[in-house]
């Protein structure tokens, strides 16, 4: 059997390395939204909620936390989302759950991937790396058991701050997407909503 030419070997090794990198990268792929939950908790017991003041941590960023648009959009999106999941149409005075949110901003860095966009190889001066800084926004929604004060669920979503602050419409869209993304991972959901609908209709 004729051995493959060097160019093919190079290509083969490059593909193998790319596959290894892709596999390793996929294992650490970043997600846009998610949550942490108290696994021992039965969420079906919770039917109502109210807003509560946030904890000192995580720290908040005034560009978001003191922005009236931002507050309105977040609170509106959360209330709509919780209503869809069966936690009531609006906050109540004697709730099962207390909720609060935090809007944090962290200065982060990213490297320019231009070399990879040009075919995955570079030579000499083309191998330079450009580092960019950006503000990453993180929205945290905490849900506590009102009776015990214990955190039972924390939702999170991240988004670039520059994009959020671009316009009120862009902010609303980003927040709706973020809140929907995190609440999709919250227990309760369809079963709780179905039970609430059944109770609303009364006994058959």
């Amino acid at each position, binding site marked *: 059997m004729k051995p493959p030419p060097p160019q093919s070997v190079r290509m083969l090794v490059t593909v193998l390395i790319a596959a290894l990198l892709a596999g390793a990268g996929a294992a650490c792929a970043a997600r846009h939204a998610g949550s942490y939950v108290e696994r021992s908790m039965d969420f079906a017991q919770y039917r109502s909620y109210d807003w509560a003041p946030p904890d000192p941590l995580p720290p908040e960023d005034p560009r978001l936390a003191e922005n009236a648009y931002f507050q309105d959009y977040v609170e509106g999106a959360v209330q709509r989302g919780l209503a869809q999941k069966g936690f009531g149409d609006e906050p109540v005075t004697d709730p099962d759950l207390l909720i609060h949110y935090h809007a944090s901003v*962290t200065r982060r860095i990213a490297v320019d991937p231009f070399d990879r966009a040009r075919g995955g190889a570079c030579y000499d001066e083309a191998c330079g790396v450009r580092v960019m800084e950006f503000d990453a926004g993180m929205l945290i929604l905490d849900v506590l058991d009102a009776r015990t004060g214990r*955190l039972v669920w924390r939702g999170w979503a991240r988004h670039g701050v520059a994009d959020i602050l671009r316009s009120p419409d862009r902010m609303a869209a980003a927040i709706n997407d973020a809140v929907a993304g995190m609440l999709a991972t919250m227990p309760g959901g369809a079963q709780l909503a179905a039970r609430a609908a059944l109770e609303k209709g009364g006994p058959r």
Partner: protein
Amino acid sequence: MTPIRPTWLAASAATALAAIALSGCAVAVRSYVDRRADFSQYRTYAWGAADTFTTGDPRLDNNTFFRDRLQKAADARFAARGFEQTETESADLVLHYHMNITQRIDVNEMDQKYGYCDDCRAEVYDAGTLTLDLVETRTGRLVWRGWSERSISGVLDKQDWMDRQVEEAVARILERLPIPRG
């Protein structure tokens, strides 16, 4: 036939290994010990107050899920060493933990070394450092510090993954305690 340059193969292999080590999350575990301390005299411990400063990732700040998992893992390890958990006032040792996350850049140096590299790139990753401190209650002196540092990019995105990494990190740090297993 033009032979493949050994440097090119070496560079490719090294790139792959470095990337796997980074993405696959290489772990460094270290500890300091106060050599004046007599660890045979310690029998009890208590948890110290939680940190009141940010960790570097808002998801971990005031995160009781993370704290509970970490404390449960550490409690099991201390119990296995014959330690008893008590109230702070009567404990021989107070145990503190600190979590810190910072972004790091890992730049592929092959381009400088060989003048050529394939799939050249720089990696940005989140380095997480978990530190466990043991303070002697009577004197307030730090007698032991163990820590684990590794890439945790993506680890906080999934609770199951975070839990596993916390347990592994705590186990590996506390393996270095200068105390024989019970």
